Every structure is written in C-alpha cells, then in structure tokens.
C-alpha cells in the first residue's frame, strides 16, 4: 500500500525564484530563509517520496475570471510552467501521475467535493518554487505530481473548514489507493502578507505563530475564523494558508508531529515559513 511519508510546507514568493536564479542563497538577506532548507533536503533524501500531492493557488497564469474554480485538480500527464508576465526564466515541467489523479478525482466526487478536473493545467511559481527549494540542482523532478489549485483570488473563497475537509477527503482517497508509492504532501504559500491596498506590507507574526503551533496538533483550530477574519489576521494574500490547511488535512486524522520549522520576516513583502511534519 502507498505510504504517506509526511508533509512539506513552504512560502512561494516569486522573488525566491530570482534569488535562486542569481545564486543569492548565502547573501545576508536570503540566508535566514534558505538555511531553513538544509533540514528539508536531509528529510527528503531520507523519506524518498516518488509522488507529491501539491496544494497551491494559481496567480493568474492558468485560471482567469471567466472560469474560476473553487477547487481544481490536475489530471494531466505533464504540467508546464509558462511566462507569468515578468519575463523570468520558465521553470522545469512536472510529470503527472494521471492514474492517481483520476483515483482521487473519483473519490472526491463520490465524497461530494465539486471539483474542476483539469487535463491541462499550467503551473506557476506557487508550485515551481517549492520544488526548486526542495530539490535544488536536479535535472528533473524526482516525484510525479497531483496538483490542487485552491481559489485564493476571487471571493468567495472556500472556508478553512472546507479546505481541511478537502484535504481529509484526499487522505481517504490515498488510503484506498492500491499502488505502493511513497507520497509527500506539499502545501505552498503564505504566511501572512498583503500586497494590495493601503495596508500593503502588513505582516502578523502572532497569527503565523498560532497557525504554525496548531497546524500539526490541532488543525481544526485554524478553521474557526471566517475568510474575512483570516484576511484581517493574515492579510489579503496571507489567506494562502488555506493551501497549508488543505495539505495538513491530506496527512489524515491520525497524530502528526512537527519535525522542522523555520520562520523569517521579511522575504519580499512576506513572512516566509517552512515546515515539515511526519506521522507521529
């Protein structure tokens, strides 16, 4: 039976990609953030996943306001990055695990999640940067992926409770999968930040700490706030923590332990965080 080896969470700020591209990892600005990844590399080398279920959000590359899904699930054989408008280098493509995608899709619809199924899906920095951070300098990614895109762009957004439930439903799907893959769960984005409005530059260490302290041991604690309250506490883009919550759900309801945490303010306009969790 497939094994869920654990979960990896990280911020995905576009500027990180620039820093990697320019080799700035040891610069004083970047070092406190990149230093948080030694442990991630070590852990991944040890748990050796071959599939990643990734919860992230599109930033206007694949989805537009003509058709904006609440939850989109990839079912493609390949996923490509593309120009996001800044003319930056294009990230490496990803291999999909289509059979597992369809297994999860069938299970989710049976479980009354009204997903949008994507046989084509461009992936943006929210997926690529966490991979560049986790597996630097590889020729090709060592894992196949099943990507989820959660709407964090256009309100109404799904509630944190619904996102946790989505993740838990994905966990049930993984439990009924008969393959023998080693599966890592990935949640990307956040933590607190706000790019738009007069409150641009807003960061909230207390709320981020609350989220990180509870995510492993009591994820339901993160689902008590409405989206509106989450925006107030985390910032307009800080709601990307929904991806983390869904990813935590996909770890399942058995006990989970935090094995690593790094938190640094600021990376670009963002409180940047990295975490690892394992089944307890």
């Amino acid at each position, binding site marked *: 039976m497939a094994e869920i080896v654990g979960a990896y969470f990280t911020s995905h700020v576009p500027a990180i990609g620039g820093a990697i591209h320019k080799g700035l990892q040891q610069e004083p600005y970047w070092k406190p953030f990149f230093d948080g990844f030694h442990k991630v590399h070590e852990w991944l080398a040890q748990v050796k996943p071959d599939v990643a279920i990734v919860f992230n959000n599109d930033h206007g590359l694949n989805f537009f306001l003509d058709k904006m899904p609440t939850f989109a699930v990839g079912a493609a054989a390949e996923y490509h990055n593309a120009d996001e*408008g800044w003319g930056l280098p294009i990230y490496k493509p990803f291999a999909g695990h289509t059979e597992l995608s369809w297994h999860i899709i069938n299970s989710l619809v049976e479980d009354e999640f009204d997903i949008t199924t994507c046989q084509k899906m461009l992936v943006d920095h929210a997926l690529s940067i966490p991979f560049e951070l986790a597996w630097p300098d590889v020729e090709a990614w060592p894992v196949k992926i099943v990507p989820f895109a959660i709407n964090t762009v256009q309100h109404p957004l799904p509630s944190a409770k619904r996102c946790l439930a989505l993740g838990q439903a994905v966990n049930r799907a993984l439990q009924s999968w008969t393959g023998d893959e080693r599966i890592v769960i990935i949640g990307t984005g956040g933590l607190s930040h706000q790019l*738009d409005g007069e409150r641009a530059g807003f960061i909230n260490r207390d709320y981020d700490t609350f989220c990180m302290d509870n995510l492993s041991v009591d994820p339901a604690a993160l689902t008590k706030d409405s989206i509106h309250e989450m*925006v107030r506490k985390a910032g307009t883009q800080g709601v990307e923590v929904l991806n983390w919550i869904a990813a935590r759900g996909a770890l399942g309801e058995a006990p989970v332990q935090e094995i690593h945490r790094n938190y640094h303010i600021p990376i*670009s306009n963002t409180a940047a965080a990295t975490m690892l969790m394992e089944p307890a």
Partner: protein
Amino acid sequence: MSGPQNAMPPIPGTHLFDGDAAAKGFELNAMCYSFNDAANRQAFLDDEEAYCAKFHLTPQQREAVAQRSVLGMIAAGGNIYYLAKLAGIFGLNVQDVGSMQTGASVDDFKAMLFAQGAGQSYEEAHGAMIQKEKVHG
C-alpha cells in the same frame, strides 16, 4: 452585493476582491491577464492607448492605468495578481507597488518590513513609516 462578508466590519486599507470588484474590474483584469504573453506586453508599450481600447477599459480604469495609480486600479476592480503583470512591464516588483500604495518611499517601505522582522508590530512599523514620510515628504 449581499454576500455574507458585507455584514463584517471592514478591514482598514484592505479591499476584498469580491463579486462587486470582479464584475467591475473584468476588462482591466482581462487586459492584465493578457500580459502573460510577451508580445502583448510589447503591444502595450508600443501603443498603450490602442491596447487599452482593445480591452474596452472603463474610463475609470483607463485613467488609473494612465496615472499608474495602483490604488486607482484597485478601486476600478483590479486584482493585484493580475495588476502585478502590468507592474512587471515597468520592472516594478511588489515592494515598488507597496511603496506606491502606501505613499512611502521604496526604502521606507522596505524598512517597515524589516522593522516587523525585528519584532515590531505592523501598527508600530507602519506608524513609524508614515511619521517619517510626513517629516521628509
């Protein structure tokens, strides 16, 4: 719009991209979405007026774009994820955009972020930034 969030107390300095905004901003966001394509970015640079006309921007949107007013674009329904692609045409990053919206210099905006990293609350760091702008601005 009668969404549940309208009953909520507003969040200062914060504009939720809800149905009202999405409906109002469709054309502006559509134009910005087109900037994923380098040829479209060049077309905008070559003839901004014609490019905006092609996307049927509202007068309010056109004005905000002409003035490079990020807050104006947001008031006209722009969503920051799409607007960032327009900003990218001018080589502006999210800190430049933050500076434009807060009225602080880019350096002061960055200092405000570092201050939060050093342990200040947003309110403290933001207050100090605004104070500084008053003195130097």
